């Protein structure tokens, strides 16, 4: 690598700053676990385009081979997503995350903008009563999607050098960081997206060494206060909870009103049986059973109706690969911000998949949440690819020395001996609840 090339701005971008004396070949790690997430993203996106077409293209004439408009749009968004992925994976993540607070502030600004009364509907178009989209002319933009990434970067930025979060009081600030976007998104209202932030925060806190007993305590308190919150829910939200209870009791009375969406999805999922149905049959089944939100929240039902248990399980396996791949990237990273990015992002994806598939399977109430990579929608798909790009970014770049091998506490969990200092081990030199620089 020549010196002239070394100062090339792109190279500096990749290296994460000009003072890195290492040659670029030592900075990059082309063979890495991140590729698994790229492969899974690609397969899932293609499955999404196909499933959208199954759901929406009702032309039953087999000689008609054109994709439906929405599927074509999704295909375009997928290409845009891949480009976005490539763009975001190049600059060193330390560089990317340096502006984390700025991104976060911009996103919060956009979320507030959505709620400002008096903005003409030509700019903020309510859908199903939710003010979640900004009309960009060619397509709609959903700020809450991109906020997820900004949130991960901000929390990572906050936690990277801190140890306060190992105390109960220290959880307050991360809690506030999460509460702001959650509050703004809940007001839209978009309960589905809002519900993803807390699990992601928890995952990052766990990875950053917060004490599990604190986190469990918080979960228990939240669970116990849930009945108090119930009266404050909106009536349709209550109805959905009642409907799911009734459904488990075998009461089908709500199948034609509040539980219609869920019962139809469940029927189509079960109808997929083990190997699914031929393509025309799947199209007809989805269409004539009037599955609502079939290209969107309920796309999992379409996938299973087409490919059956095998297809559904394969799809879940792809998500597992994505998430585990990302976590392996986290594990192979030695630098705090990279680690937290590669934990926070898969936490978003995993939570979203579990909630979405759970509501398709009728074990969770319908709260309106998309299935990553599959559901139709530009903001959602591009955000997912950006997430893949960030994971690749962390996997791709070696940490810039000097770095600290972070979050290595000798007393990671509870127990009477935890107060005593334990021996430092491995290359981590932390002890007594303090992280130290190597």
């Amino acid at each position, binding site marked *: 690598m020549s010196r002239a090339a070394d100062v090339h701005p792109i190279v500096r971008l990749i290296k994460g700053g000009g003072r890195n004396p290492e040659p670029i070949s030592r900075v990059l790690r082309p063979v890495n676990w991140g590729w698994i997430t790229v492969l899974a993203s690609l397969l899932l996106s293609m499955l999404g385009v196909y499933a959208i077409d199954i759901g*929406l293209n*009702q032309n*039953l004439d087999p000689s008609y081979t054109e994709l439906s*408009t929405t599927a074509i749009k999704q295909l375009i968004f997928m290409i845009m997503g891949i480009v976005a992925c490539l763009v975001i994976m190049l600059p060193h993540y330390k560089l990317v995350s340096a502006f984390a607070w700025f991104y976060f502030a911009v996103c919060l600004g956009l979320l507030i903008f959505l709620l400002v009364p008096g903005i003409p*509907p*030509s700019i903020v*178009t*309510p*859908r199903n009563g939710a003010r979640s989209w900004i*009309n960009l002319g060619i397509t709609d933009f959903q700020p809450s999607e991109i906020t997820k990434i900004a949130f991960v970067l901000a929390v990572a930025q906050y936690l990277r050098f801190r140890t306060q979060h190992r105390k109960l009081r220290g959880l307050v600030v991360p809690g506030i960081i999460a509460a702001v976007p959650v509050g703004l998104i809940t007001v839209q209202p978009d309960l589905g997206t809002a519900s993803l932030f807390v699990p992601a925060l928890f995952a990052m806190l*766990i*990875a950053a*060494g917060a004490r599990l007993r604190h986190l469990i305590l918080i979960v228990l308190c939240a669970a116990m206060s849930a009945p108090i919150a119930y009266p404050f829910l909106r009536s349709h939200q209550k109805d959905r909870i009642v409907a799911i209870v009734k459904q488990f009791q075998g009461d089908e009375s709500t199948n*034609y009103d509040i539980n*219609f969406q869920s019962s139809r999805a*469940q*029927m*189509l*999922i*079960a*109808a*997929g*049986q*083990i190997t699914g149905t031929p393509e*025309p049959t799947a*199209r*007809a*089944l989805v269409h*004539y*059973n*009037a599955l609502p939100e079939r290209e969107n929240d309920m796309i999992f039902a379409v996938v*299973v109706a087409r490919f*059956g*248990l095998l297809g*559904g*399980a394969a799809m*879940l396996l792809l*998500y*597992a690969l994505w*998430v*585990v791949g990302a*976590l392996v990237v*986290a*594990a192979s990273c030695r630098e705090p911000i990279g*680690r937290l990015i590669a934990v926070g992002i898969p*936490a978003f994806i995993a939570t979203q998949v*579990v909630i979405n*598939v*759970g509501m398709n*399977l009728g*074990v969770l109430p319908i709260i309106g949440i998309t299935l990553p990579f599959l559901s139709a929608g530009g903001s959602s798909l591009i955000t997912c690819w950006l997430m893949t790009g960030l994971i690749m970014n962390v996997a791709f770049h070696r940490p810039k020395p000097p770095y600290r091998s*972070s*979050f*290595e*506490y000798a007393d*990671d*969990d509870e*127990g009477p001996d935890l107060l005593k200092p334990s021996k430092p081990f*491995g290359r*981590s030199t932390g002890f007594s609840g303090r992280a130290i620089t190597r």
Partner: protein
Amino acid sequence: MSSIRHLIPSMFHRRVILLVILCLCALLMLTGRLGYMTVVQGEEARARAEQRLVTTTWLPTTRGRILDRKGRVLAGDRASYNIALDYRILQGQWVYEGRDGRNYAMPIRSYATRLARRANPDIWETLPEHEQADLINRFESALRARVARMHRDLIAITDIDPADYEQRRTEILERVGAMKQQIADRAYQRELEKFERTGRVASESDLERFRKIANQPIAEEQAAHTIIPDISDELGFAVLRMVAKQEPIVSEGVEPGLLESLSVPLYPGLSVEDATARITPFESMPITIDRSSFPPPIRAQDPVTIRTDGVGRQLLGRIDDGLYAEDAQRRKDALTRDDELRARSLTSRGTDRGRYFPGDRVGRTGIEQSFEHTLRGLRGVRIENLQTGAVEEMLPEDGRDVQLSIDIMLQARIRALLDPAVGLTRVQPWHQNEQSEYTPVGTELDSAVVVLDIATGEILSMVSTPAPALSESEWKDRGVNTEIERRLYEKIHAPWVNKAIAKPYPPGSVAKALILTEAAKRGVYQQGDRIHDRGYLIEGQPNKFRSWIYKMYDGAYGGHSDQLGRDLDGVDALMVSSNVFFYTLGRQLGPERIALAYQDFHVGRPYELGIGTEWPGSIGQFNGPNDGSDVLLDEATLMGIGQGPISWTPLHAADALATIARAGVSITPSIVRDGYAPDVRDIGIPSWAVREALQGLRQVVENRQFGTGRAITYEELGPESVPIFNAPGITVWGKTGTATAPPLLFDPDDTPEGNGPQEPRIVRMGDHSWYVTLVAPEGEAPKYAIAVIVEYAGSGGRVSGPINNEIIHALIDEGYLPRVDTQAEPDA
């Protein structure tokens, strides 16, 4: 814990592994649930999901007709439909079908807004208000145009006067409106009173609330109302097909993908209702009776016209539209039994086109019940697979007709003759009925008649009186007003029982003809045998087993041998109806062989005509083995003259004489022409015995001096007797029977709730009166067998004889016997 710590020294890595495990656990649980749903619930869910890929439209069918032997329709469907409109459409709202299949309504403007939104899903919210309003206006006018077109189409299709149509529309609106007003007013008052009872004064907002409560829609406001009644089959179908059609409300400027969601019915809120009626044209008709051949005391030159009701009621049975689980089960059984029926009925998807839908009619009694699955039509069905577009269509198949061997006009004539108003079935002085205490002169008598075609075994007519009463007014016409009167009437007259086939009667002397032939068949009586009738059977026991002449004159004239001056052969014995002769044969046959004798004549076996309950006849105890094993010798002796433990029905009687007329060939009588060959069997009577029996039967009617069924003396006409049969050119063979019947008891306070202190009292007593004949044009073999029984009426010849004679005249009137234009024989 510590071992894990040693295995994975880095805390961060342990935590990452924890997250991996959490994530995999969640995904595994979801996969488990997915597996459960697809594997366990999969099959059922697939079937349910696929149900929506097909639409099934049922087309109505018609129940088969019941015809008489000449093809006259006794019962038939008059197909008819009503066109009905949802009240809310008439009111000017839009009606649409909800996901649950029920009709819902909203103002047309609101529905237009909904469609306009649907047509512009992405941009609707961004449109300025005036553009939204324009779009809504466009949809609204299209919806209004569609409703207007429906009304226009209905007027055009049914060719109804537009003014009439408009008037009906107004009538419905006014009627329902008035009803609604009345109900709302009452509800408002009720609410107000309820409120005021609490001692408060209602404010304006309270009143407003009451008005709101009172204004709840009533059922009539959400129901369909007939606007065009009684349209034909063809029109009904045409409209029905249109009801299923949907078309996009607007198509210009709409994305093709959205057209389907903008489809609305061509005829919103319209329904076609089945209003088919079962009609029985011959159930009630006026019959003119020529009384010139009647017994002299009631003979008249002017005919009388009688209105007969319930002509075929007991045969045809009734239908109703209340369904029971048993009906569905019987349908299933019929399909299992009958391969041909199953092949016709099932669709390719295995659905029975003849299965019962709510509101379907089911035969409950008579032919309507026993031929339910023949008469019941098969619905047409149109199954469209929405995925493949394949259409499977099966046209409706009308129910098959059932033809009876009955001649409905003959039936009506006979029923008219048996109407007490005519006089033949009322106690008359010449009947010499000894039971005047229970049945004084003028008492209405119940009767049963069977007319059988000897050559085919077909039943030409079968009448039982009185017919069942179907309505309160019919009960009133019969003078029955109270519960106890009704029970008494039912006890005496048993209107529900078809007496011709379902009520046990002792055969009486009618049985003598068949005992003669059976004794001959079984070697007890040989050709040329003669038996001495001294008036009683057993030497030294003149009070037992006596001849009627000995009993009537207390032995003054001895027995029939003394009367005739010779020992009796079979001809003599039948002619004078000698008891001693037939006691002798009965005793010699003994219990077993006399049982076989009666069995040869179908006693103990039902005919299975298919028109309801039958009495199979009994030999020995009721419901016993019917083989004589429970019969004593003395009882067998009594059975020789048709008394003792033996019972049959008028149909058995007619069949018995018909079998003798066929020289011992039995043809099982039938009433339905179902295409099956009748059961024919030679019972093996020697031909000489047949000749002797027929000769004897002829002598009964013919012999001026000794024939027991030839003539009647009427006090008012002096000692000269008048022949019973007076149809010129007709030969009659016959046998009277005066059958001892047990007294009929009625316990007024014996109700289903328990028996009171009152003792049962006798309401009827005495003998049933039989006269069974064979008739033919002069010089020919017997063609028809006629059995007549009148209950508790006394002498067979005096009561049933004249009725039998009038039935012969009825056969002549209906063309079954020739009319010979000679003067009737002068009274002898």
